[in-house]
């Protein structure tokens, strides 16, 4: 089987799964649909592996293969072809996406088992994976945008999956609207680039990139607009507010879309567009700075959020901030390496969180959790592994990937050093908030559900409720459904979490500084035209300093979290009381929602109301439509009065009318 065929199998298999499952809705929910969905993604993963081995068989120079299915449109200089670009970068992304997705599908087979929308769920999930693979495999801007928009739509469908829950539909709309802002940015950015390169095809456009002047105005505009798209998708400041709200979706969705795959699309995009960003360093600098800002802002919010899933959501934002900072500072391999390790441990953390939420019968508030350590040993183990990897404790995967980003950013020198140092601050915060979450959920005195579970009884809420508002709701819709499922009792959840845990522990060996360089070497052909790829290398001293600092900060953060939330549990409240202003600032998420509300939502809503009340109702409806219709109506009312229905009136009218006319002509004639 050739490389091209593998590429198409990767793409077609989830699409076929989506359609097949959707067509089977009449059969009612059955686990078979879940297994079909999982199989479809697994086939995709195997095909990605096939593509990988085919790719490695080729020579260094021939590892960028474009395959065209057909010309969608080829006219007036636009070459919109359905083409895939198979190179190390896209195959790497396909492997991560399909691999993690397959495990999350497997997890969902049990986790979602009692949901009424089981069929719909797997159909959407397969559709999402198809869109994401289209996004990463697309060989030109045209299909990149198509995949980009599909991913946004799939995300909307899955966030609003429990569509009778108003908070979920509102969150879905918010995510969709912000993603559309990103789509518009991407389309306009593509226009600016296309205007000069004259080709939508990636490879030809990249070849034309050096023809731009350095920091050429159009190129900077194009890159910044593409950055808007990347930031909306990857939940970077200031387009990040949708991600925490997206936690309204089912937990596997949070794991798949809002942690492991979709939100990393922006990182992929910046890495893919590196020839342009290297030619427009101003745009790349904007990306690096905002990525750094995001990682700090999200980490501080993560410190105070009490919702279990939202803590992980903010940590996702923060970690993607690292990746964006990395790829924008030309640390491509490091950024993508972190993307991969993050996909493993973040999906694992979400799965463990899902298991805890199931044990709490849908409750997500950390204040009401505690002491699950003995009741849920497997989940606890998974959470600890994920937490250690996220905090960056050696030798877990996150340790190597995060520190490589920071070391390479510092190696860029000048003001990038500041970003690197802030990255270290972020690592400390990461360790603290991650372990705050783990200590609060798993340590201290067991809460009621945990005690019941220790006696082998799974807690059920007296009434189903919305975890966000506490509102009582219909049991047929939304978590936990009639039954809920924890990892300790479901083999498929165990397998999925176990495999991810292996990845979270050992993925780091791919890129151990000064020892292994697998990923960097593998991705090299995709970045052969990069100015920095080979040259950017931290000095030995910097490498060791970075690793040591990272390890110390991670362990220190964990120790601090242990002290604050296990040993001296009165302290956090005291600190909170002392820093009430800062605390409320963080709890309100730096007032970003309010800011966006004031700057955009309310003026637009006012404009909309003005247009409706004044323009639409008065001008259009009153004057333009109302004027002529009013005249016609008045005229017809007058004429209508004549139509009395009495025959004699008609006859009289006729008679006297004709007589009158005849008299007139007679008199006029004489």
């Amino acid at each position, binding site marked *: 089987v050739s490389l091209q065929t593998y590429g198409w199998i990767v793409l077609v298999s989830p699409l076929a799964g989506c359609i097949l499952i959707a067509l089977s809705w009449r059969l009612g929910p059955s686990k078979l649909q879940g297994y079909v969905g999982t199989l479809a993604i697994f086939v995709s993963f195997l095909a990605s592996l096939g593509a990988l081995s085919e790719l490695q068989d080729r020579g260094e120079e021939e590892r960028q293969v474009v395959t065209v299915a057909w010309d969608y449109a080829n006219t007036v200089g636009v070459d919109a072809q359905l083409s895939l670009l198979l190179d190390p970068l896209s195959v790497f992304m396909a492997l991560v996406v399909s691999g993690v997705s397959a495990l999350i599908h497997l997890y969902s087979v049990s986790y979602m088992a009692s949901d009424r929308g089981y069929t719909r769920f797997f159909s959407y999930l397969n559709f999402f994976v198809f869109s994401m693979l289209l996004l990463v495999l697309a060989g030109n801007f045209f299909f990149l945008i198509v995949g980009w928009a599909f991913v946004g739509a799939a995300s909307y469908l899955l966030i609003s999956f429990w569509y009778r829950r108003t908070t979920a539909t509102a969150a879905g709309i918010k995510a969709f609207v912000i993603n559309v802002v990103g789509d518009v940015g991407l389309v306009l950015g593509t226009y600016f680039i296309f205007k000069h390169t004259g080709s939508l095809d990636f490879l030809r456009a990249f070849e034309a990139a050096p023809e731009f002047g350095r920091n050429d105005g159009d190129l900077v505009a194009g890159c910044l607009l593409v950055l808007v798209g990347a930031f909306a998708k990857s939940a970077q400041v200031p387009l990040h507010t949708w991600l925490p709200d997206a936690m309204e979706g089912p937990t596997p969705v949070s794991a798949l879309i809002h942690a492991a795959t979709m939100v990393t699309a922006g990182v992929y995009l910046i890495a893919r567009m590196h020839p342009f960003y290297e030619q427009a360093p101003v745009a790349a600098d904007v990306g690096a700075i905002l990525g750094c800002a995001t990682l700090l802002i999200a980490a501080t919010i993560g410190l105070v959020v009490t919702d279990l899933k939202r803590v992980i959501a903010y940590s996702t934002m923060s970690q993607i901030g690292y990746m964006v900072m990395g790829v924008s500072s030309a640390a491509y391999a490091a950024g993508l390496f972190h993307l991969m390790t993050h996909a493993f441990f973040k999906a694992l953390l979400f799965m463990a969180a899902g298991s805890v939420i199931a044990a709490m019968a849908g409750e997500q508030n950390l204040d009401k959790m505690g002491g699950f350590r003995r009741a849920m040993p497997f989940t606890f183990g998974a959470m600890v592994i994920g937490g250690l990897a996220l905090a960056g404790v050696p030798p877990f995967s996150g340790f190597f990937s995060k520190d490589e980003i920071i070391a390479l950013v510092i190696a860029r020198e000048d003001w990038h050093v500041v970003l690197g140092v802030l990255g270290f601050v972020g690592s400390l915060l990461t360790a603290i908030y991650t372990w705050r979450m783990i200590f609060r959920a798993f340590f201290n005195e067991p809460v009621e559900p945990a005690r019941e579970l220790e006696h082998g009884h799974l807690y059920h809420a007296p009434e189903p409720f919305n975890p966000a508002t506490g509102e009582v709701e219909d049991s047929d819709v939304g978590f936990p459904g009639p039954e809920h499922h924890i990892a300790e009792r479901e083999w498929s959840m165990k397998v999925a979490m176990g495999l991810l845990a292996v990845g979270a522990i050992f993925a780091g060996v791919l890129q151990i500084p000064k020892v292994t360089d697998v990923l960097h070497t593998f991705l090299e052909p995709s970045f052969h035209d990069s100015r920095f790829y080979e040259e950017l290398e931290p000095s030995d001293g910097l490498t060791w300093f970075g690793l040591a600092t990272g390890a110390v900060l991670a362990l220190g953060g964990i120790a601090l979290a242990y002290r604050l939330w296990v040993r001296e549990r009165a302290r956090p409240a005291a600190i909170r009381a002392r820093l009430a202003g800062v605390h409320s600032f963080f709890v309100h998420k730096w007032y970003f929602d309010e800011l966006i509300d004031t700057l955009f939502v309310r003026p637009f809503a006012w404009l909309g109301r003005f247009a409706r009340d004044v323009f639409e109702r008065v001008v259009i409806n009153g004057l333009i439509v109302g004027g002529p219709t009013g005249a016609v109506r008045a005229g017809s009312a007058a*004429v209508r*009065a004549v*139509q009395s229905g009495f*025959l*004699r009136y008609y006859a009289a009218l006729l008679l006297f009318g004709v007589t009158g006319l005849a008299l007139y002509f007679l008199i006029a004639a004489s």
Partner: protein
Amino acid sequence: MNIEWYLVVSALVFAIGAGGILVRRNPLVILLCLELMLNAANLALVAFARAHGNQDGQIFALIVMVVAACEVAVGLGLIVAIYRRKLPIDVDELRELQG
């Protein structure tokens, strides 16, 4: 011959017919009045034809009679239909066409 008297009779008959249409409510009577009006016109046509020595008016009168026969057939048909549907045989009651 003098044509005036024919025309006076014609006008009188026409006026009687028109008055009948305006004041009567029974559709049958209205139909009869309509016939009066048509025939008044016929009288005038024939009189003028005679006065001018031109046959066109007479031919025209014949055609009017044919039309009148058709019209009576339709009108009587309507009246029978109204009767069969047990609707009031009164044109003032049948006023659904009002605006």
